[in-house]
């Protein structure tokens, strides 16, 4: 708001934009001349401002204005003199008029231009109106005459002193749902009528004073606006629902109303309201039955066409005036949309018989019962009438609304006309039965019939519904072990499940069950996908300790990912079961999705160490993607999915030690990508290539056979790799270097091209980090140092732009924790890394992955300071701190092998330090601790071969220690 805080060019641009909006045509030169000091920036900024404003202008101009209704210029029509305008609706404007010849007041409806232009139209209009004029029924507004004047069609009918049901519903809605005073545009007639619907014998004890804290109770009493004597106590909720009772009576703008913020917008009127509604709708049904018998269809039954007069009599108006042709001519007007909301599906498609009126009357009843529109999004109904015509009662509605009335609505609003009441009189009969507390005739469809119907309508969803609900319930429970942020998401999931479960308990009818099944199935799938993403994110974040992880993967490829907790594994297994069933059951309906699900099964199996199963799943999904790709070659989504699956399989094959196969797959995938030239040129294609190359580098670096022959536990002797590698190995590293270079250069190009896309930058930083490892292996520490610096500076600049991003901070801390050679540079980097870890932990205390990184960094720092040099006990202190942190982690997550191994490692290194400090007792203790951790792991039965090697190594050291101290 303070202008001085803003960029000067921003202010100028705003002025510039403002002038454009005023219709001026200011030139950019004008500004560059006025403000030469900003000329460059003005030239850079203003063109886009101009472009955007021009577009924005067009957008707002193109908003269709509703057809303008009649001016009072047409003051008389034939025998009728217009007195005033009452309202508009039903494709025309309604006036109050006086019929000169008979000196009686009438309602005069004048059709819109658009409706009356075509000659064919006029004829039809006339015929329909004449037919309607022949109807004589107590609940049908009589038509007095039809005519044409000023080129406009009009007809005169009895003036009803009342309000339309639409107005009444709006009135109730604003009172009870929006908790607002009556909107001023609604007449007091509507308010009165609304009130009358709620009115009952004073003894009914249904109307209550508000009990909210605003003290409106006393003010109401003081004003004496309340008629009801009843003050029976009731739950605050119910009371709140009727706290506006007096407002209805008072009419508009009674500002003394209290509000109750906690009130849930649900309409829970007294029983008498339902009875009044049933009576009104029964009379309407009776009128419809009469008209249908006379061969006249209404075609536009909706609350706006039902009038309630002061005597409480319902009147149907506008018989037979809505025509299909009118609809086509008027798709843009609000009028049509209002009508569309209530149309039967077959009517929207242009056919249908009298049962369309029954459908619409059912919807009207629904709206009266709930104050909510039965069918949403009228525009979409136009496109897909069957898909958007199913009426549903929400759970709260189901609790409040009399069951029989619900059944009547559902019967009347059945999608298929054959499932509805066949005659309006049948509907009336059921409403009367409800009023007389007799059992209604309509049956809800039997369970099997209902499920069958439902399955026909929702083929995909129905199969999903068979998926186990219990499975996902377990899932929600398991998820609860995670850290705070995740727990929040999860407790939401859990609440939803709890709710779904209680719904299940409540179910008594197949219809309800079908609905629950449907929502549940949809929810299940969504949640499974969300849960999967959550887990993967979580695991990916934990995977930071790749250096330690490598040991595990090299040692025992069959072993599950060392960073997984038991909960992760169970969770992933549940999810895998879910995706598996999903893929099986939807293989034909949802091909792409089930192939994706199949891929996820593979990823999960990979994670939890079922490598062979994973291979199978991935191969299967690749095959499915490939088939789809051939069918729709332009679909880049399929190609991307396929590539992702292939990439996963390459890593997997590498892990299984099948490097030749991994290599072959890599080459094949590369060729595949290269064959798609359009894809290859696209940004996402480029990125995919870079990712593929990057993952191949990783596979090579971690799993190639030579690598696995390297002495295990490289961390025990921190000697840098020999530069005199055997030629074959040297060649392999060289190849990896090339792959890495290629990947990095693509990423560099992308970063260059899209300087603000952080995904590319992070990927590039990772590529540089990979390069560090390769260069170290090739014995080129100096260039490795350069790569590390590039990686770090990339992340530094990202972090500078997003100082709030924990992910970037973590990534940077991880990069900086890498040690190369130069002690001073390394320790400087580690110091910074430590600071970053501390910041992370300050913001997210207790987060395991940050703690783990911090302990790693502490250990590295401790080892960088040579304890034998006289530099105080700082290194030892750091080592102790690291062990303390790691012990905490190991205790918190006993099943995460990675944490245990790291702890063992630190104890071991601590013993070395003590040994160097000539404190053999301490050294022995540390070794004993290391051994204890190893034993614990052995008991748990994880990573057996690795543990065995580790224990041997510890034993060796112990013996060595004894020897030295003895010798």
């Amino acid at each position: 708001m303070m202008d001085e805080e803003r960029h000067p060019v921003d202010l100028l641009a705003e002025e510039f934009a403002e002038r454009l909006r005023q219709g001026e045509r200011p030139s950019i030169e004008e500004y560059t001349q006025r403000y030469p000091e900003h000329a460059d920036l003005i030239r850079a900024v203003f063109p886009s401002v101009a472009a955007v404003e021009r577009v924005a202008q067009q957008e707002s101009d193109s908003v269709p204005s509703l057809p303008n209704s009649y001016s009072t210029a047409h003051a008389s029509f034939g025998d009728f003199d217009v007195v005033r305008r009452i309202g508009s609706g039903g494709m025309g404007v309604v006036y109050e008029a006086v019929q000169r010849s008979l000196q009686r007041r009438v309602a005069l409806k004048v059709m819109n231009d658009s409706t009356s232009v075509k000659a064919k139209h006029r004829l039809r209009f006339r015929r329909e109106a004449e037919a309607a004029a022949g109807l004589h029924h107590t609940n049908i507004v009589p038509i007095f005459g039809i005519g044409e004047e000023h080129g406009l069609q009009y007809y005169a009918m009895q003036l009803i002193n009342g309000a339309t049901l639409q107005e009444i519903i709006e009135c109730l809605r604003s009172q009870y749902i929006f908790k607002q005073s009556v909107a001023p545009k609604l007449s007091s007639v509507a308010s009165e009528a609304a009130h009358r619907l709620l009115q009952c014998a004073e003894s009914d004890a249904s109307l209550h004073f508000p009990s909210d804290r605003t003290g409106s109770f006393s003010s109401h009493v003081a004003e004496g606006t309340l008629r009801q004597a009843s003050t029976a106590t009731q739950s605050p909720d119910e009371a709140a629902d009727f706290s506006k009772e007096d407002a209805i009576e008072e009419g508009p703008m009674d500002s003394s109303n209290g509000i109750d913020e906690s009130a849930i917008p649900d309409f829970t009127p007294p029983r008498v309201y339902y009875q009044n509604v049933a009576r009104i709708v029964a009379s309407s049904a009776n009128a419809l039955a009469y008209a249908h018998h006379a061969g006249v269809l209404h075609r536009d039954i909706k609350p706006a066409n039902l009038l309630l007069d002061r005597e409480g009599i319902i009147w149907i108006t506008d018989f037979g005036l809505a025509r299909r042709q009118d609809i086509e001519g008027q798709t843009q007007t609000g009028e049509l949309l209002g009508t569309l909301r209530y149309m039967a599906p077959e009517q929207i498609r242009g056919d249908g018989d009298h049962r369309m009126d029954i459908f619409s009357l059912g919807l009207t009843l629904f709206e009266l019962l709930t104050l909510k529109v039965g069918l949403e999004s009228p525009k979409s109904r136009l496109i897909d009438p069957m898909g958007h015509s199913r009426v549903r009662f929400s759970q709260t509605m189901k609790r409040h609304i009399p069951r029989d009335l619900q059944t009547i609505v559902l019967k009347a609003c059945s999608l298929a006309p054959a499932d509805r009441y066949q005659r309006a009189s049948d509907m009336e009969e059921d409403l009367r039965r409800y009023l007389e507390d007799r059992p209604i005739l309509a049956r809800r469809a039997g369970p099997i019939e209902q499920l069958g119907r439902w399955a026909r309508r929702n083929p995909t969803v129905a199969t999903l519904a068979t998926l186990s609900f219990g499975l996902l319930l377990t899932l929600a429970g398991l998820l609860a072990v995670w850290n705070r942020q995740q727990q929040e998401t999860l407790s939401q999931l859990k609440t939803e499940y709890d709710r779904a479960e209680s719904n299940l308990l409540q179910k008594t009818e197949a219809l309800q069950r079908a609905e629950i099944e449907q929502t549940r199935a949809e929810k299940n799938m969504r949640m499974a996908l969300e849960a999967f993403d959550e887990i993967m994110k979580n695991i990916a974040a934990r995977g930071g300790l790749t250096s330690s992880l490598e040991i595990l993967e090299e040692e025992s490829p069959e072993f599950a990912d060392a960073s997984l907790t038991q909960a992760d594994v169970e969770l992933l297994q549940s999810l895998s079961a879910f995706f598996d069933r999903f893929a099986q059951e939807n293989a034909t309906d949802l091909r792409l999705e089930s192939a994706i699900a199949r891929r996820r099964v593979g990823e999960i199996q990979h994670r939890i160490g079922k490598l062979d199963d994973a291979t199978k799943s991935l191969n299967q999904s690749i095959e499915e993607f490939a088939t789809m790709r051939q069918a729709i070659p332009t679909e880049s989504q399929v190609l991307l999915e396929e590539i992702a699956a292939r990439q996963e399989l390459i890593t997997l094959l590498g892990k299984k030690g099948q490097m030749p196969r991994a290599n072959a797959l890599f080459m094949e995938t590369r060729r595949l990508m290269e064959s798609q030239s359009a894809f290859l040129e696209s940004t996402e294609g480029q990125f995919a290539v870079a990712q593929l190359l990057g993952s191949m580098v990783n596979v090579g670096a971690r799993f190639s056979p030579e690598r696995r022959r390297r002495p295990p536990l490289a961390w025990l002797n921190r000697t840098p790799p020999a530069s005199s590698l055997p030629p074959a190995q040297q060649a392999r590293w060289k190849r990896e270097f090339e792959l890495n270079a290629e990947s990095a250069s693509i990423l560099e190009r992308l970063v260059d091209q899209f300087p603000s896309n952080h995904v590319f930058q992070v990927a590039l930083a990772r590529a540089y980090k990979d390069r560090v490892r390769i260069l170290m292996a090739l014995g080129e520490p100096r260039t490795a140092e350069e790569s590390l610096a590039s990686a770090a500076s990339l992340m530094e600049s990202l972090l500078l732009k997003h100082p709030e991003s924990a992910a970037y901070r973590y990534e940077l801390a991880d990069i900086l924790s890498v040690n190369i050679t130069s002690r001073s540079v390394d320790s400087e980097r580690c110091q910074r890394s430590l600071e970053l870890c501390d910041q992370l932990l300050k913001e997210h205390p207790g987060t395991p992955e940050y703690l783990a990184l911090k302990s790693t960094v502490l250990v590295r720092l401790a080892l960088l300071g040579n304890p034998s040099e006289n530099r105080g006990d700082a290194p030892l202190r750091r080592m102790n701190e690291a062990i303390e942190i790691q012990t905490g982690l190991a205790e918190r997550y006993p099943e995460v092998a990675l944490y245990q191994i790291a702890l063992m490692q630190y104890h071991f290194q601590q013993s070395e330090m003590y040994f160097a400090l000539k404190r053999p007792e301490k050294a022995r203790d540390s070794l004993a601790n290391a051994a204890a951790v190893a034993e614990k792991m052995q008991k748990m039965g994880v990573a057996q071969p690795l543990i065995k090697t580790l224990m041997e190594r510890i034993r060796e050291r112990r013996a060595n220690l004894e020897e030295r101290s003895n010798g």
Partner: protein
Amino acid sequence: MSESKASQPESIDPRAFLTDGGAEILGRCLEAFRPRLEKIVAFRLDPSLRQRLDPSDVVQESYFEIARRIGEYAEAGAVPLFIWMRQRVLQTMIDMQRSHSREKRSVYRESRLPQPQFHQSTSLSMARILMDDLPSPSQAAMLAEEQEQLQLALESMHEIDREVLAMRHFEQLSNSEVAEVLHISPTAASNRYVRAAARLSEILKLLPSQRGGA
């Protein structure tokens, strides 16, 4: 974009909603903001759902939520009313879109790119609107391609810059409102706006159809 536009309902003390007549005040605010909110929804709405969802329906739908949660807002009152309502409306929109796309079981529902859906669609919304500016419908084929190009280019912008641009121009939020939404200082918001507008000019310049124009 003038700061005074919002001043009237904005200057209401949130606690007023808790008093007698609070509902009426809320009603007035809702009506006052309605055109702006509809505009925002019209801009943000998933283009593929434009046929099926009407901005005014979305705003209408959100009013339930707003009415229900106004107490919560009044207690906290941390952000200006308009900003809070905008959030509610957009959340409602997202929920409605979600339920619609679930119906459709869209192929694109699971995107592999690790970008929040919302921001991606900002680019799409902007691209679509900017491309609507083309003069002749005969260029339709080229148009689609260009829109894609433009969208990609917009996606390459810094996420926050893009949002700033979108909010300033298409949602017509003021600078201070933008700052409020993004939790950045007004100065930062302003600087980002200038930068983003400059970048957009560059992007527009690269589009063949825009060359020589503007």
